[in-house]
């Protein structure tokens, strides 16, 4: 009897602890999830065209663009009678949900593959899934080296660091790029993602495109090089970089907060390029549209040497049907994407450390959004 009573009390206390933790996390995500500035609210809302959009829209996909979608949703749902629920379950989950017809729109870090396009034809009656590049993100290389406030790296050095071929911070290759810095004799702790991620995919694509010799791997969402340490999610890598002396890691720029310093990249341009949203937009402008028809899949030019173009970028797509969207969700999705691609929608991105799409590309996106049916 006594034991039973004890267990029940423990359960009650445990339940209290759990609900307390839940309440705390709920607060946490509220604060970080919607960091959009209140300044542009009034102006933005007046420009949103709702048409006859209404109801509820479910969407799923890339967690890399979650903060961007949250910021859009906040503005959009204030203006229109639409409830948009973006579940950032990951690009893979988003594409699967889309090709199974569970969501009318998905977010993804990589464009649809041919077999996924084939699968989408079943959902889009008379049409197929298309990629709309909507959000850009610079991938920052953050580091934690005591006494070093400015660091310049090039792709070959980054490749060697992440492939465990350079193991000390005072290595001649790093010293050559940073003649003024006092580099300590400290072991390099290179952090990569332990989960599969579009950030890893784009980061390794950059290394393969610009330093194939020093990074002899195939690339992809899973990290392939041996050695180094790993942590889950961009936030996990950033946290490890922050608390480990000698650490270096890659993550989206928005995670480079609270004193994490980011390296500038020597691309061969006149000056080393800092990781900023403007510089990322300049690099995305070098991309070519490789999608056919209404598909706007991009091929990024990682080897760009343009001045001020930050080459380590990630473009995330919104995936919708070009034709044959479900009648009940089409107006809402169309109105939302129209807003996201609008000047106001793209302006909010920069406030959240994302890179707006360059003018030439976003114009094409706007035309395509208008033609969705």
């Amino acid at each position, binding site marked *: 009897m006594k*034991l039973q009573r*004890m267990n029940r009390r*423990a359960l009650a206390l445990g339940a209290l*602890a759990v609900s307390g933790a839940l309440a705390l996390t709920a607060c946490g995500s509220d604060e970080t999830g919607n960091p959009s500035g209140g300044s542009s609210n009034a102006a933005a809302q007046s420009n949103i065209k709702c048409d006859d959009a209404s109801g509820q829209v479910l969407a799923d996909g890339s967690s890399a663009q979650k903060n961007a979608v949250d910021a859009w949703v906040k503005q959009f749902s204030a203006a229109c009678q639409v409830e948009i629920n973006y579940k950032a379950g990951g690009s893979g989950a988003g594409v699967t949900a889309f090709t199974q017809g569970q969501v009318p729109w998905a977010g993804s870090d990589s464009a649809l593959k041919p077999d996924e396009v084939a699968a989408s034809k079943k959902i889009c009656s008379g049409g197929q899934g298309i990629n709309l590049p909507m959000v850009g993100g610079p991938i920052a290389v953050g580091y934690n080296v005591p006494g070093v406030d400015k660091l310049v790296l090039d792709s070959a050095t980054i490749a060697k660091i992440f492939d465990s071929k350079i193991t000390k911070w005072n290595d001649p290759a790093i010293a050559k790029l940073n003649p003024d810095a006092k580099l300590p004799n400290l072991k390099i702790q290179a952090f990569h993602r332990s*989960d*599969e991620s579009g950030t890893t995919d784009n980061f390794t694509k950059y290394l393969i495109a610009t330093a194939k010799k020093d990074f002899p791997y195939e690339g992809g969402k*899973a990290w392939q090089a041996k050695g180094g340490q790993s942590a*889950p999610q961009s936030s996990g890598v950033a946290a490890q970089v922050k608390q480990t002396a000698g650490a270096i890691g890659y993550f989206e720029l928005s995670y480079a907060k609270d004193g994490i310093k980011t390296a500038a990249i020597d691309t061969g341009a006149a000056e080393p390029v800092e990781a900023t949203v403007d510089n990322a937009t300049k690099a995305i402008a070098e991309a070519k549209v490789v999608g056919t028809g209404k598909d706007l899949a991009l091929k990024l030019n990682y080897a760009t040497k343009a001045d001020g173009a930050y080459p380590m970028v990630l473009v995330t797509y919104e995936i919708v049907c070009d034709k044959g969207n479900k009648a009940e969700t089409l107006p809402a999705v169309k109105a939302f994407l129209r807003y996201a691609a609008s000047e106001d929608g793209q302006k909010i991105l920069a406030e959240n450390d994302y890179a707006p799409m360059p003018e030439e590309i976003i114009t094409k996106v706007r035309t395509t959004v208008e033609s969705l049916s």
Partner: protein
Amino acid sequence: MDTTQIADAPPPTQPTTAEQKRAARGATRPGDRIFLGLSRGSGILLLVIMAAIAGFLTYRAVLAISKDDGNFLTTFEWNTGVNPPVFGIAVLAYGTIVSSIIAMVIAVPVSVAIALFLTHYAPRRLRGPIAYVIDLLAAVPSIVYGLWGALVLVPHMNGLFGWLNDYLGWTGVFSWQGGAARSMLTVGILLAIMILPIITNVSREVFRQVPQMHEEAALALGATRWEVIRMAVIPFGRSGVISASMLGLGRALGETMAVATVLSPDFLIHTSLLDPGGGTFAQNIASKFSEATEFGRDALIASGLVLFVITLLVNGAARAIIARRKEYSGANA
């Protein structure tokens, strides 16, 4: 006496065959028959559901393994997104087993000691609060253990790791290169803390069941308290403690979020337990699932099936050990 008399007495009348059948089935009235049907149906339904799940998982696993470019059992890599895909479970199996063994080595002696303290040494006033705190440990969600591990345990492991490296580094198993302590040993210690409550609670219950007479008899023969525990309590409770440990081991083998938060996974087997790296089945599934393609998920399901097989083997071994020690089980006391 009563029962034998009834059995020996000749039956009053010979029942008809139909009546016999009905009596054998035990269902004579409609209520009985409906209940029999419901319970039998539920039993069969359970088997069908289990078979369907097993069939589905095996089918998906076979789909994935048949396209694997590497050897599913020995490849040190997990890359399902490339063409052809390469993946193998060697590192995961090693990491799962090693981290669980570390957890057991730490948790079982401590749990047994706590259980003995609570049942035989602690003053009555202390027993309640201590048992209560242990129950509370079991109620903490694993992600909270993970966060605590990453934020508190890992930074505080450096002292222990340095000490191990200084005195036992020559073995190779405890050599340390410096850096964050996000290694198999840290995971093992965290798992030990997580499985401690369940082993302690079950062991305590078992030790409480030791017949008072055994202990009194030992005391009467002049045994000290420690000798009573050694000769009467521990042999009696051994099979119970083994069962408790297996419950704990089951939790350690399948622990997901805490491991994923604390470990720095990679696909290499490190000789040193202090090097960051390695991985476990559950951790790998948790970290790869969200971005995996359909094929990637099939591969993860295949790895999950291997974990299932390992768990079955462990449970079978535990049952075999307990069966050999039947004479000490509570039922015979």
